[in-house]
C-alpha cells in the first residue's frame, strides 16, 4: 500500500496529478467485495446453450440444483431437493425443500420449474437445432409433476452419467419458468434462479456483479459481492493482481515460473482433466486422405510443442481421458516425430507441398504451440498460415460455413467428472456444433450410448477405451496435453474450485 511519503515525493517531482486521498484498494481482508478475473465476458447464460465454464460458474452461483457438488469435490449432496432417490434404473423421485423462492416476484420454486428447466434441453432452440448441451439430458423422457413440491424424473434408459453431468452440474440448474417466459433476449433477464447470488449488474465487457441474494434459504455465502472482471490479456491480469485490483485469477503456465517467487499471493496448482489437441477437419480435402493426416501427426514432436506452449509445466496426453478418470487408456499410442516417414506418406498421397490454415485461440500458450507446429510441418512440406482468433470468433469457428472451411485447429475442451461429458463432443450429432473434426463414426456413437447405460464400472471403462481407440484410428486427433490449472489467489482467500480446475463455486469461497 502506498504511503503518504510517496505522494509528497510525487508532487515534489513536479508531477501535479490531482490526487486527494488514496482510497486504497480492497484486499481479500474485506468480507464485502471480491474481484475475480474472468477470461472473457459472458455471452449467454442459458444453461442449455452456455458457451463455457465462465458462464457455467455464474449459473452455478445464481441457481440451485436438486443436488450439487460438495465444496471442492465431485461428491454429491442434496441442494434444493429435500429428498431424492433413484427408485429404479429409469426413475428418480424427488421432493423439494419447502419455502424456496425466486428473487424478484417470481414466486416459489416448484416442481413445475424443475420440469421446465430439464425438459427444455430436448426442445429445439432459437436456431432450430437442439441445444448444445442436449446430450446431458438425452436420457430424460419427461418430468412428472406429482405435487407442488414433488415430482419424478422418468428416463428413457438408464444413464450412468446423469447424476454428475446433468443433475449436479450446470445442466441441472433450476430456473424460474415464469421469468424465462418474459420477453427479453438477454442474459440478465432470462435466467432467474434461487441461488445464493443474484445478478446485480452487468456492464458488457466491463464487469458483472453478483450480489448476495437476501431471500436465499441456506448458509449465506461469505462475500456480499463478487465482481467478475473480464480481462483477456494474461499479462494484464497478473499486473492487475499484483496491483491489488484482482484477488483471484487463473494464470498461464509460462507465468508460473516468474510468480513462484512472488509474494503477492499464493499459487494453487490443480491437476487438470482438460483435453488440448491438434484437430483436423476430415471432411476437407486434402485432409480427407488418411495418409495426409498421419503425415501431420508424424511431422510434429508433441513434447516439443507442449514444452514451448506451457513452459515445461505439463505432461503429454495420449488420448482424450486424463489419468485418474474412468476410462483412462494408458497404452494409447504416442508416436514419435518421424519426418522421413511423414514425407513419404505425403509423397504417396501425391501431396508434396501443401498449404493449410491452423485456427487457434489467441492465447500465448496456443500461439507458441502453433508456431512450433508451423515450423516443424514446414520442414515436411506443409506450409501453415496461423489464424489466432479472439474468444468469440474462435468458439464459433466450428459452426456453419466457417466450420466447413476449417482445416487444422488447436482445440481445448474442459473436462468434467464423468467421462461421458468430454467424449460427447465427438459424436456424429455434434458435427456442425462441437465436432469440428467432422468425424462421422456410427460405431463411436453406439459405444457411447452403451457406455452411458452400463452400470458395471469395469465394463464401462473398457467401452471408453474402445471409443478412444476409434478416435486414434481416425487420425483426426493429435492429443497434446491435459493442461494444468494454476490459480493465483490473494493472501487470505480460499477459493472453492472443483477438481477439474475449470469450475468455480463462488458461493463457497471463503476467507481462510
Amino acid at each position, binding site marked *: *500500500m*502506498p504511503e503518504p511519503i*510517496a505522494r509528497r515525493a*510525487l508532487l515534489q517531482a*513536479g*508531477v*501535479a*496529478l*490531482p*490526487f*486527494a*486521498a488514496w*482510497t486504497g*484498494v480492497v484486499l481479500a481482508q474485506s468480507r464485502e467485495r471480491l474481484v475475480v478475473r474472468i477470461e472473457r465476458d459472458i*455471452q449467454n447464460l442459458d444453461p442449455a446453450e452456455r458457451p463455457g465454464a465462465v458462464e457455467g460458474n455464474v449459473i452455478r452461483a445464481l441457481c440451485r440444483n436438486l443436488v450439487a457438488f460438495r465444496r471442492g469435490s465431485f461428491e454429491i449432496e442434496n441442494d434444493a431437493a429435500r429428498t431424492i432417490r433413484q427408485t429404479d434404473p429409469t426413475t428418480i423421485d424427488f421432493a423439494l425443500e419447502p419455502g424456496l423462492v425466486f428473487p424478484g416476484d417470481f414466486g416459489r420454486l416448484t416442481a413445475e420449474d424443475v420440469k421446465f428447466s430439464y425438459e427444455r434441453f430436448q426442445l429445439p432452440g432459437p*436456431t432450430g437445432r437442439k441445444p448444445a448441451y442436449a446430450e446431458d439430458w438425452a436420457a430424460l423422457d419427461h418430468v412428472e409433476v406429482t405435487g407442488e413440491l414433488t415430482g419424478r424424473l422418468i428416463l428413457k434408459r438408464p444413464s450412468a452419467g446423469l447424476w454428475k453431468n446433468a443433475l449436479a452440474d450446470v445442466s441441472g440448474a433450476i430456473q424460474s419458468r415464469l421469468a424465462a417466459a418474459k420477453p427479453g*433476449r*438477454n442474459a440478465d433477464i432470462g435466467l432467474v434462479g434461487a441461488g445464493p447470488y443474484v445478478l446485480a449488474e452487468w456492464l*458488457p*465487457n*466491463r464487469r458483472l456483479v453478483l450480489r448476495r441474494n437476501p431471500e436465499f434459504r441456506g448458509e449465506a455465502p461469505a462475500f456480499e459481492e463478487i465482481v467478475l*472482471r473480464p*480481462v483477456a*490479456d494474461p499479462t*494484464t491480469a497478473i*499486473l*492487475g493482481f*499484483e*496491483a*491489488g*485490483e484482482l484477488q483471484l485469477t487463473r494464470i498461464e503456465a509460462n507465468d508460473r515460473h516468474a510468480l513462484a517467487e512472488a509474494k503477492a499471493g499464493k499459487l494453487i496448482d490443480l491437476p487438470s482433466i482438460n483435453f488440448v489437441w491438434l484437430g483436423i477437419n476430415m471432411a476437407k480435402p486434402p485432409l480427407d486422405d488418411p495418409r495426409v493426416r498421419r503425415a501431420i501427426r508424424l511431422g510434429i514432436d508433441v513434447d516439443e510443442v507442449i514444452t514451448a506452449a506451457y513452459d515445461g509445466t505439463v505432461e503429454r496426453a495420449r488420448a482424450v481421458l486424463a489419468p485418474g478418470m474412468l476410462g483412462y487408456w494408458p497404452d494409447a499410442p504416442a508416436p514419435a516425430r518421424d519426418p522421413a516417414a511423414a514425407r513419404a506418406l505425403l509423397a504417396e498421397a501425391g501431396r508434396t507441398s501443401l498449404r493449410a490454415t491452423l485456427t487457434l485461440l*489467441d492465447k500465448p500458450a496456443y500461439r507458441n504451440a502453433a508456431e512450433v507446429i508451423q515450423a516443424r510441418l514446414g520442414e515436411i512440406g506443409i506450409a501453415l498460415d496461423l489464424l489466432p*482468433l*479472439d474468444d*468469440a*470468433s*474462435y468458439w*464459433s*469457428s466450428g*459452426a*456453419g*460455413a*466457417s466450420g466447413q472451411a476449417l482445416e487444422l485447429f488447436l482445440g481445448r475442451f474442459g473436462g468434467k467428472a464423468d467421462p461421458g461429458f468430454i467424449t460427447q463432443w465427438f459424436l456424429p450429432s455434434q458435427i456442425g456444433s462441437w465436432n469440428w473434426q467432422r468425424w462421422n463414426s456410427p460405431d463411436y456413437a453406439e459405444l457411447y450410448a452403451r457406455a452411458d447405460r452400463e452400470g458395471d464400472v469395469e465394463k464401462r471403462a473398457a467401452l471408453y477405451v474402445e471409443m478412444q481407440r476409434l478416435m486414434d484410428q481416425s487420425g483426426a486427433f493429435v492429443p497434446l496435453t491435459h493442461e494444468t490449472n494454476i490459480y493465483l489467489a490473494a493472501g487470505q482467500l480460499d477459493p472453492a474450485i472443483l477438481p477439474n480446475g475449470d469450475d468455480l463455486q463462488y458461493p463457497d469461497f471463503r476467507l481462510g
Partner: protein
Amino acid sequence: MRLGVVASRLAATLAVLVAAMALLFALTLAIPGDPAAAMLGPRATPEATASITRQMGLDQPVPIRLWRFAGLLATGDFGTDIVSGRPIRDMVFEVLPFTLALAGTAIGLALALGFPAGIHAATHPGRISDRLLALVSVAFVAVPNFVVAIGLLLVFSLRLRWLPVQGAGETDDLLDQVRHLALPALAIGLGWIGYIARLVRASLLEVLGQPYIRTARAFGIGGFRLTWKLALRNAAIPTLAALGVGFGRLLGGAVFAEIIFARPGLGTLIFQAIRARNYPVVQAGVFVTVLLFVATNLVVDALFLWLDPRLRAEAERL
C-alpha cells in the same frame, strides 16, 4: 471576411465527413466474397446472415445502399449489434466519454507541464536543463507511445505500486476514475509535454528578444507575471495549431493506451470489434472517431479566430 473563413472551414469539415462516409462505404463494397459472411465471419449462421443482409440492405443495388448508408450515418443510427443485440449507437456513446476523458486529460497534462517547462527553458536558455529538455522532448515525441506506455506500466504500476494498472475505475467514484486516468494520460501526453514546452520556449524567446521587453526589463518592470502573460499570449496560437493537427495522433495513441491499460473507450471498442470481425461496430467506431477529430479541428479553428484579434489588440495595448 470572417464569415467567409467560417463558411469555408465548415465546408471543408463537411467534405471530410463525406469522404469518411464514402470510404467506409467503399470498404463494404470491396470486401472480398459475400460481405455478410465476411462481416460475420465465424458467426455466419443463416439467421445472422439474413439479419445483417436485411439490416445493411446488402442485397440492394449500390446507389440505394449508398443512400441508406448516408441516411443512417446522418441520423446516427448505426444499427443493431449482431452479437449482443444492443443498438450500436449505445455501445459507441457508452465508451465515448472515456476516450474524451483520456484525450482531455492528456492534453491538460501536456499543457500543465509543458507550459512551465517551456517558460523555464526560455528564461534560462543554454543551461543544462534547457539542453536536457530539448533532448528529452524530442525523445518522447519520436518514440512510439505504446513503448512509453509499457515502460510507464512497468515502472509506475509494477515496481512502485503507485497507480492502478487497468480499467477505468468505479463509475461512481470520481477520484478513482482520476487515479485510473493518470498513467494512460501520461503515456499519451508525454510526447506533447515536450513538444509544447519547445513551442512555448521558441515563441517566448522570440518575444523576450524584442527591444521594448528588454527595455522594460532593464528598468526592473516585469518579472514572473509578465513572463507568463507574454508566454500565454504568444504561444497560444502555435500551441493550439499543434494540438489541433496532432489530435489525430493523440487519438491513435489513445487506442494503444486503452488496450495496454485495459480501459474502455473508442479504441478498445474498435480493436475488439476488428478481432471479432464485427464490421458494423468498426464502421460506427471509425466514423465517430473521425467526427470527433473533425469537431476538434473546428473548435480549434474557431478558437483561433476568436483569439487572434484579441491577442493582437492586447499586445498593442502593452
